[in-house]
């Protein structure tokens, strides 16, 4: 019975052992040797209960074997390496009172561990899904996948983003086809009705997307179709009762969930963040405005002088005109020529008033393309009198490509006038003062340089130069540079301060070039 049957049993990949009802082992195949680490010769003739150290087996297993002649289940058994294994065993009892029991066994330890890991992972995922402060959505994307697949197959679409942009109705249809499978509590809090449950959110995603945000939805679909691992964008979304709010929308497209046709989407409500940013921006604008008004105060005498020039000229023209008219006969040609000059001088006065008014205005900044060469030229005009009065020579080197930045023109003007005024004041005791104004580009950046030939910035002052309320002057709040840096920062730029090798200070305003590049002839 042993030899021939043993050779046959060795061909079976599962462990096989044959035992009597009392547990004495009669047969033990090669797979059992491998699984339990025990040679056949040492297993045969021993009792299974002793061998495995686990007793005869669980009560219900023995009972089932007794009554039905069969049982199967998982049992812990010591493995070949001495570590516990989980073995899935099948017991079958032969016919007759002395019949032996055949046990086949399969090591399922690794499977069990993998299943357990998966269960834990899913549990963790569910916990995260529910407990995170972000709103999470599990979406059924399968119908959209079908729609896109059919479109692609038809060969009509080569460029998804372009196709979506040209077909807004298709985008809305994709939204309607995307169903919400599950959402977490935060989603109910963010998107649901007060006191409402999540059931009413389990529908199509279409109502949650305002028309104006369709492009973001389309972009996320294009990202998914294009094989991107994830997508994220700031947009506006809508609650179930129609309130819109700013949100960070993120979607990830892992291959396994994509194959299932489900999609995990996260939404963070940015309302408070956006409100705080807006409040901060308003405060910065108000401070910038206050600084402009205070700068105008400092320049009041200069501005009066600048306006008095054309006014004085107009008065002289009028008096001259009167005299030409009083002659007999009146010199009408002379008067005619004077009228043109009066008009030009009036325009000049109006222009100065316009500049002052723009500087004094407290309007919310309007970022737009601003050619920096014009900003430098405007600043020189604005400070014309200060420059002349101080006997300063001005040297401008303007970039030929006329670079353009995205900024608020008045605020950028304020920065340059502020820096140039500082330069003029720094050169108060300098013989032959020279103010150098320069524009240029470096990489994707636009640089405005304001340099003087004054004493420069003391090394110990440099680190604190841009701090609020820091000033080396007897008068002034010390807010100018802090505000200037704040303005540059709002437009994605910065201001650097340093000294020139040949003496004097150099301030460099560094801003990103305006997307769209260079406007050759922007109306000033």
């Amino acid at each position, binding site marked *: 019975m042993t030899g021939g049957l043993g050779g046959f049993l060795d061909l079976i990949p599962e462990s096989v052992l044959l035992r009597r009802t009392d547990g004495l082992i009669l047969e033990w195949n090669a797979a059992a040797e491998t699984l339990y680490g025990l040679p056949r010769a040492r297993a045969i003739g021993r009792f299974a209960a002793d061998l495995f150290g686990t007793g005869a087996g669980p009560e219900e297993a023995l009972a089932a074997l007794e009554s039905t002649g069969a049982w199967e289940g998982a049992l812990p058994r010591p493995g070949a390496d001495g570590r516990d294994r989980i073995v899935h065993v099948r017991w079958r009892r032969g016919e007759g009172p002395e019949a032996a029991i055949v046990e086949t066994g399969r090591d399922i330890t690794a499977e069990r561990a993998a299943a357990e890991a998966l269960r834990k992972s899913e549990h963790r995922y569910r916990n995260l899904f529910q407990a995170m402060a972000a709103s999470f959505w599990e979406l059924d994307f399968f119908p959209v996948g079908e729609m896109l697949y059919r479109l692609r197959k038809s060969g009509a679409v080569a460029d998804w983003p372009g196709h979506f942009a040209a077909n807004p109705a298709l985008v809305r249809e994709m939204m309607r086809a995307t169903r919400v499978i599950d959402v977490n509590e935060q989603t109910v809090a963010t998107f649901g009705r007060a006191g409402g449950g999540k059931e009413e959110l389990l529908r199509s995603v279409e109502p949650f997307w305002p028309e104006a945000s369709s492009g973001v939805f389309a972009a996320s679909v294009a990202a998914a179709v294009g094989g991107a691992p994830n997508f994220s964008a700031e947009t506006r979304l809508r609650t179930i009762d129609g309130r819109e709010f700013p949100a960070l929308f993120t979607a990830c497209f892992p291959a396994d969930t994509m194959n299932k046709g489900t999609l995990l989407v996260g939404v963070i409500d940015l309302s408070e963040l956006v409100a705080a940013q807006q409040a901060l921006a308003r405060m910065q604008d108000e401070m910038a405005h206050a600084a402009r008004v205070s700068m105008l105060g400092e320049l009041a005498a200069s501005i009066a002088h600048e306006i*008095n020039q054309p006014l*004085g*000229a107009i008065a002289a*023209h009028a008096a*001259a005109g009167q*005299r030409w008219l009083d002659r007999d006969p009146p010199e009408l040609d002379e008067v005619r020529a004077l009228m043109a*000059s009066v008009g030009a001088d009036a325009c000049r006065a109006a222009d100065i008033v316009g500049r002052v008014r723009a500087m004094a205005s407290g309007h919310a900044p309007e970022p737009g393309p601003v050619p920096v060469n014009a900003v430098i030229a405007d600043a020189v005009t604005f400070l014309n009198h200060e420059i*002349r009065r101080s006997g300063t020579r001005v040297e401008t080197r303007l970039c030929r490509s006329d670079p353009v930045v995205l900024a608020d023109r008045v605020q950028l003007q304020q920065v340059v006038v502020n820096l140039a005024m500082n330069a003029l004041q720094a050169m108060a005791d300098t013989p032959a003062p020279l103010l150098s104004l320069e524009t240029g580009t470096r990489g994707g950046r636009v640089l405005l340089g304001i340099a003087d030939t004054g004493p420069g910035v003391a090394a110990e002052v440099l680190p604190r130069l841009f701090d609020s309320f820091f000033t080396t002057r007897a008068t002034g709040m010390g807010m100018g540079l802090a505000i200037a840096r704040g303005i540059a920062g709002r437009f994605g730029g910065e201001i650097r301060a340093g000294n020139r090798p040949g003496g004097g200070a150099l301030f460099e305003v560094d801003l990103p070039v305006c997307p769209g590049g260079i406007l050759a002839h922007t109306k000033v």
Partner: protein
Amino acid sequence: MFANPLVAIVDDDASFRAALEGFLRSLGCRALGFASAEDFLQSGAPDRVGCVVSDIQMPGMSGIELARTLGARDRGAAVILVTALAGEQWPRAARESGAVCLLQKPFDPQELALCLSRAMGG
């Protein structure tokens, strides 16, 4: 007043200078304009003009210094000073420089006419 007297206008503001030249012509004067005191002094005109109308605030030499320079000459032309800046110091500085008149911009051109007749007639 002399027939067609020669008057120099010294002002770095081109449009104001042109306006004054026009006004002086309407008064029957011949006017010569200069953008700076230095230009005027180097031009040879100082020996020919009967009167100089000069702005005080200019890059380089100021109107006050110009009045002083001309006053130090044997036969210097009379100087009328003009300023756009309000300031208590100017009347005294103008007087001490030997200027005959100080006008504050914007001024009534008739006042300039009066100053001129005083400068050249008196």
